[in-house]
């Protein structure tokens, strides 16, 4: 049973087209992707009884097919067709059929603030850089992209996008261990050192200090024990 990526990764159409598929899993430069966001302009919109087919263009390649299933029980039609010429943010799953890639969208939102388009560009670079670097850093703890809360990007709630949280690999590893600790008094520095044998105590302490000052963790019974502020 493969572990599905929990992230929603901002991507360019060119990256999605270049993604390699092995069994059910897509990878962009070895980074596993499933749910993605794309920002582009609608070039074409075609309404069918059960779905709307869009072609969304972000200039990095030819426009990508984006399919949005329509709820046929819905009388009024919550799915209003977005007109061509509109910039949208699409959240959906990457699919491939007969070697052709497409997206199945669970949300398509016209951009009301075009600065989100600029932000998306920056988030793509940031996300792919972090994801690839985390793959390469040798560690005993798998990388985790814990959501620091629901990011208010255009209002599609319920899905945490990749946080721009600026944590280094060491800080992420320490945070993940602390998060995974179920006991009320949390994880001690000594336990962290045992688990992260490749990390020096001073590095661990620096990471703990940073995470604490950023509000990711808090001390419990004493300054040696920490719990995560994120409810998991």
């Amino acid at each position: 049973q493969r572990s599905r990526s929990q992230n929603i990764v901002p991507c360019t159409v060119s990256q999605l087209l270049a993604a390699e598929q092995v069994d059910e899993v897509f990878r962009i430069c070895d980074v596993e992707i499933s749910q993605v966001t794309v920002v582009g302009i609608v070039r074409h919109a075609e309404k069918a009884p059960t779905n709307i087919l869009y072609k969304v263009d972000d200039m990095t390649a030819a426009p990508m097919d984006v399919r949005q299933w329509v709820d046929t029980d819905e009388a009024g039609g919550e799915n209003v067709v977005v007109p061509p010429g509109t910039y949208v943010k699409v959240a959906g799953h990457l699919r491939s059929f007969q070697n052709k890639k497409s997206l199945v969208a669970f949300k398509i939102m016209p951009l009301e603030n075009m600065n989100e388009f600029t932000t998306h560009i920056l988030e793509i670079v940031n996300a792919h850089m972090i994801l690839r670097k985390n793959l390469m850093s040798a560690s005993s703890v798998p990388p985790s992209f814990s959501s620091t809360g629901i990011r208010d990007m255009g209002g599609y709630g319920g899905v945490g996008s990749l946080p721009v949280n600026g944590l280094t690999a060491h800080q992420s590893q320490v945070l993940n261990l602390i998060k995974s600790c179920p006991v009320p008094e949390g994880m001690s520095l000594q336990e962290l050192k045992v688990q992260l044998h490749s990390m020096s105590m001073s590095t661990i302490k620096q990471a703990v200090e940073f995470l604490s000052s950023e509000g990711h963790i808090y001390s419990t019974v004493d300054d040696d024990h920490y719990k995560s502020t994120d409810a998991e």
Partner: protein
Amino acid sequence: MGDIHEVPRPRIATGQLAQHIGKPVCFVGRVEKIHPTGKLFVLSDGVGKHTTVELSEPLDEEISGIIEVVGKVTNQATIMCVSYVQFREDKSPFDLELYNEALKIIHEFPDYFPFG
């Protein structure tokens, strides 16, 4: 709408026109002036440098604010426009300077933002 929309169109600023002569590009800028014939207009980029955009047919509407042009760079380092859209600014103004910074990033890290 033409073949140009089926290929990668690198996002560039005025300073990069020379490196893209003959190639399809995407340019975002602020309308500075429109020629009386309507076949030519000037856009400024995020650092205030001007780019001339030419049209095969005159404009049939008033354009203003932020325009995104898709076209090919001519030998004179102008852009022969194939299509354009106006960015909506009814709710918030577009930060063109920030967009320029984003362009610098994507040109510095093409591995993470590939065109094509």
